[in-house]
């Protein structure tokens, strides 16, 4: 690119750290003047002011608008991150979440002043339970991994109640599982035992049987699984694990493929978290916040954490303490009642789609993935055959490797083409995985454009590996050095740098 004096390139604005332009004395807020009355800090006032630079409002707005334009987003194009369900985020949801009647509610207001919020939670619960065919739901988990924690803690509580809390310590986890599954099991004090996958990407039932024993607490299974396949032996697996005295935790991250078409409750699932920020369209926000309500089977329902919503005649109330609650709650997942702001968005989305629309969501998400599989299968290697797949399609790097191109190189070349890459190197069961999840909110035209680009790139791989090795060329940045970042971690700006920058 032509060098410029400003460092900007046309509309692409160079933007330094705010600390490099901000000043300790500047502020972007006005406040009434303090009275200067005697304080009650008991001598524990701040010795010196924090070195927090400020910006006036015009400067601040400009800083963040400039930064924003360095991001890719769903609203800019296809975001085919497998396992992440990057679907359209309706703006109606955002507007509803900002109604004073929801956003300006304190979690500890007298319950008679928050009946609408409690109705909202009850209604959300009704939709989730009806869709999943489960018995109870804990709304409070703050994301998927937190929901996993909730489910595994419920299993632990059930085992303790059975007097097997100390004996059943082993949890079976397929090697294709998402990292949060083993991490969660470990966090709950379980030992993680891997079960292998078959060559066609399913759980190896024989291996599962081998791994059974009186010390097995349960299994953590993702279904549809992370290879984009529905575990066709799911009910047998459930029976086996139940037969062995264990519980069946299902990772619901891929629920989008089956919402309204299959009820996990009909498959023998004991606990499953639902990512409202995937299936139910609450925005990912660059890494959160999420919301991971966890549905429970009758066997685990009694152990659901507080708070519970309970009826008190006409009114609704919050049961916030285990002692007072029915059943035997295993405790509390977090302060207050979970991600209410996300409940509003998710319920708004559910009401918009309705039971018919949600069913269509699942079907279109699966249709879109299979369409991509059909368009791409001659150009990439689908390790588990020609499908059908569920809502995401998995390829490995064999067609790239032969030409010396790594999955990461291919991904970076996609950046130049204006696309966010698919999920790469996950799941671990295939080499250099490329996991594509288009979601139902992509049009056929978008899918065709995307497929054309992938095919063209696949062709180019054969003749021009160098192009991929050096990619990206057109993104806001060339390839970034992860190793350097990890070797000498620099995780914050330090005030003394200000002097440095000033000196320069």
């Amino acid at each position: 690119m032509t060098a410029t004096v400003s460092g900007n390139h046309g509309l692409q604005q160079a933007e330094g750290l705010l600390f490099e332009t901000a000043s300790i004395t500047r502020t972007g807020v006005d406040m009434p003047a303090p009275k200067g009355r005697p304080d009650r800090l008991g001598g524990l006032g701040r010795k010196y002011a924090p070195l927090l630079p400020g910006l006036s409002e015009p400067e601040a707005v400009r800083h963040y608008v400039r930064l924003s334009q360095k991001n890719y987003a769903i609203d800019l194009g296809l975001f085919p991150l497998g396992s992440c369900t990057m679907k359209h985020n309706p703006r109606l949801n955002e507007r509803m979440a900002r109604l004073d009647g929801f956003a300006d509610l304190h979690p500890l207001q007298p319950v008679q002043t928050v009946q609408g919020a409690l109705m909202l939670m009850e209604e959300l619960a009704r939709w989730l339970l009806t869709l999943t065919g489960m018995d109870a739901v804990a709304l409070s988990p703050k994301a998927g991994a937190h929901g996993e924690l909730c489910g595994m803690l419920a299993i632990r509580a059930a085992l303790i109640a059975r007097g097997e809390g100390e004996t059943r310590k082993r949890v079976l986890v397929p090697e294709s599982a998402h990292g949060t599954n083993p991490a969660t099991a470990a966090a709950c004090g379980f030992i993680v035992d891997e079960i292998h996958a078959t060559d066609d990407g399913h759980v190896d039932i024989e291996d599962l049987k081998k791994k059974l024993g009186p010390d097995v607490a349960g299994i953590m299974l993702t279904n549809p699984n992370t290879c984009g396949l529905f575990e066709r032996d799911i009910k047998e697996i459930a029976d086996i694990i139940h037969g062995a005295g264990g519980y069946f935790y299902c990772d619901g991250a891929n629920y989008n493929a089956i919402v309204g078409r299959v009820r996990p409750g009909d498959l023998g699932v004991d606990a499953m978290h639902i990512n409202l920020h995937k299936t139910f369209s609450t925005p990912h926000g660059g890494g959160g916040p999420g919301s991971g309500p966890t549905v429970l089977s009758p066997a685990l329902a009694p152990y659901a954490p507080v708070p519970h919503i309970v009826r008190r005649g006409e009114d609704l109330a919050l049961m916030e303490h285990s002692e007072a609650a029915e059943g035997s709650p295993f405790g509390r997942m977090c302060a207050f009642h979970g991600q209410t702001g996300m409940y509003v968005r998710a319920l708004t989305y559910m009401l918009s789609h309705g039971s018919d629309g949600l069913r269509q969501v699942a079907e279109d998400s699966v249709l879109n993935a299979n369409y991509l599989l059909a368009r791409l299968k001659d150009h990439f290697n689908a390790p588990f055959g020609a499908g059908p797949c569920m809502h995401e399609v998995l390829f490995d790097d064999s067609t790239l490797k032969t030409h010396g191109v790594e999955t990461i190189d291919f991904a970076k070349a996609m950046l130049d083409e204006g696309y966010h890459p698919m999920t790469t190197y996950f799941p671990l069961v295939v080499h250099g995985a490329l996991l594509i999840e288009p979601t139902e909110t992509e049009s056929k035209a978008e899918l065709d454009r995307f497929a054309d680009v992938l095919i063209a790139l696949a062709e180019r791989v054969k003749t021009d590996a160098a192009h991929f090795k050096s990619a990206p060329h057109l993104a806001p940045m060339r390839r970034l050095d992860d190793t350097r970042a990890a070797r000498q971690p620099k995780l914050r700006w330090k005030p003394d740098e200000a002097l440095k920058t000033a000196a320069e």
Partner: protein
Amino acid sequence: MRYLPLSDEDRAQMLATIGANSIDDLYVDVPREALLKAPVALPAHQSEMEVERLMKLLASCNIPAGKTAFFLGAGAYRHHVPASVDHLIQRSEFLTTYTPYQPEIAQGTLQALYEFQTQVALLLDMEVANASMYDGSTGLHEAAMMASRVTKRSRVVLSGGVHPHYAETVRTACEAHGLEIVTLPAAIDDESAVLRAMDANTAAVIVQSPNVFGTITDLKPIVAGAHAGGALMISSFTEAMAFGLIEPPGAMGADIVVGEGQSIGNALNFGGPYVGLFATKEKYLRQSPGRLAGETVDADGKRGFVLTLSTREQHIRREKATSNICTNSGLCTLAWTIHMTLLGAEGLKRVATLNHENACDLADALGVIAGVEVLTPRFFNEFAIRLPKRADVVLDALMEKGIVGGVPFTRLNPREGLEDVLLVCATETNTPEDINAYAAALKDIVQ
């Protein structure tokens, strides 16, 4: 349906390309009997207009804080957030993007996180901060587990000043992990009691300042005592804005500082989403949970930012990860950092001072009422009062007059008596009229 671009014509064409006769052919692996033939028994789709009507009806069954004279704190705080904050976080490029796994097209998110980490570290006077936890309470259980990894000990002592929801959250998660959690009896001004409860297996003592009763504590002696016993000192908080005015935990030597960031940039939202702030010392970094944004350079040597030290995290380390957290509080950190950028040291001090002055005025106004006693010796913007009647009864009477007067301590912790204790808070959003109305109403009620 407005969110679904495919037409029936598209669907037919695509099935043909796939070589399937019907959509059900794609669900072949689903046990037949489990494949629903009809939509589940829930309402059918509705227009935006109809959905909006329904949601507004639900919202209208609540009384928003702003429509009352409002004095609640106890873990969530009502502050004024500049309009530009909410405008900016709604930009498509921030709102509808994912965790920055492709840094070359995610510098907006990554640089904002790097700036967030810096501001958190500066506010708390700590060496490093991470890219956020879900909230303060879950951050605290991560801190407890981290302390046990660092010290290879398994006992954690919580002061009686720790917010009961936080204590319960820590107990729930940590006991399952095999830790022994000791929570001391509620105490308005005895954070250092944790030192008396320490033993040789104690990995950490956890104190909160300002604590749930609003009391501010000098942490230096507690840090010294903890370290003398080989334990880490974890300082917790629920009101980040306090550190605009009071000595930050880092300056007093805390090893891990963790708490709730909601009060900066984020609305009350009936309890969530919020944002957990987590900071520690560099030497403990590799045992710390959560994402970290770090500086590096690109192939042309240009400065850029990436997620780093992920070898601690679940997607790499799996069962050996320092935490199972994945999605965190991304957009809430953005709101936090934008608000903090608008405040700056100057604005932060100003707004913190207004909070404190309003709280002092409130304490003065309530304290003079016969039978009402202000229990908190030193505070920022919230304090506890003892009433001559049950707090919940008084609260209902206040509500009658449009005043939301506080949180009865028993709502948070029914196990300790203290039925007559009310937790009260004032922020910059309270007017003198609010405060006078409260005092007048309370006087009527308790006499």
